[in-house]
């Protein structure tokens, strides 16, 4: 055994008093390795023992009680795992999401209906009333008519004209540039 092999082996026997025979034999013959062994032994002593890291009795007692309580709770089903907690919340979460979803859809539906009502010229109303209510300008009239015709594809213009009173037509001719359209 050479010194390198001996010192390598000594690292494995760190903290142990009993050494194999071949190591002991080399140490008797080699001062350098003997010195190395003394260094290692001093280091092992300075490294202490497991007891240096032990908690005090009060901590142990407290932890034993805590473990006992945890096991009690586990056995009586008072503690659920994270997975189980999630499971219990799933129906509630689903209900909330469904409620919010339906409310949103309902809101959008109503909103769209209102817009549609506002944008569409109702056959029973006169155009003048619509334009007065909406405070439309001359440029808006073609778009209103277009909207009306898109909703009433058959004979839209006839319907529009038929539903107008003479007073309506006079008002239109006076206040809007509608000659070409009508």
């Amino acid at each position: 055994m050479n010194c390198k092999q001996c010192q390598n082996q000594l690292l494995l026997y760190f903290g142990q008093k009993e050494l194999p025979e071949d190591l002991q034999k080399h140490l008797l013959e080699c001062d350098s390795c003997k010195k190395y062994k003394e260094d290692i032994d001093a280091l092992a002593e300075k490294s202490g023992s497991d007891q240096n890291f032990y908690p005090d009795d009060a901590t142990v007692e407290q932890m034993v009680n805590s473990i006992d309580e945890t096991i009690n709770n586990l056995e009586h089903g008072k503690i659920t795992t994270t997975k189980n907690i999630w499971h219990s919340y799933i129906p509630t979460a689903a209900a909330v999401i469904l409620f919010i979803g339906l409310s949103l859809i309902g809101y959008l539906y109503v909103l769209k209906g209102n817009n549609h009502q506002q944008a569409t010229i109702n056959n029973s109303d006169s155009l003048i009333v619509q334009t007065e209510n909406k405070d439309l300008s001359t440029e808006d009239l073609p778009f209103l008519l277009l909207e009306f015709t898109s909703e009433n594809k058959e004979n839209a213009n006839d319907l529009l004209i038929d539903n107008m009173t003479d007073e309506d037509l006079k008002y239109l001719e006076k206040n809007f540039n509608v000659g070409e359209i009508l």
Partner: protein
Amino acid sequence: MLKTDRTLFNEWIEEAQNGNREAFSKIVKIMMKPIIAMTYKMTQNIDSAQDLAQDTFVAAWQNLATFQGKAKFENWVYRIATNKCLNYLKKEGKNLPLDNHKAIHASDDPSKEMLNRELRQNILGFMAQLPQQQRLVFELHFYKELTFEEIAQLTGKALGTVKTLYREAIAKLRATALKKGWHR
């Protein structure tokens, strides 16, 4: 552990396996200190160490039926603690929440406590720098006095690998001690 203690300990294990909680509490009382010492050295944080120790014993109780007595009961619990520690370290990564190695045991003798604190600071500081596997093998062989064969069985590593890890850890310990001058 004395032979009579060992016999009694084995009886408690058997009783605990039959559902005797009192017997299990006695086992916990005996093993709590070495388990906390282990989890403390592995995690460097006393609060995490206590949590992991608690998790270890709860898992031990829940899995008592799987203990077949092929290995020592202590080694079986060390294996559970090892897995808990390694999982913790995997989650926490390299950002270990160091707690300045505060005292986990206040000695009645102030001068003794001062030496103890210095020793803990040195060792914990050194172990914090070791890779997890070296730290574990150093802990199990030097402090828990498990044989290399037992450690190989416990960690599922080859015997040669375990010896290499230990040798490397001690070489680093020697280098650290020489550099910091704390082993003289």
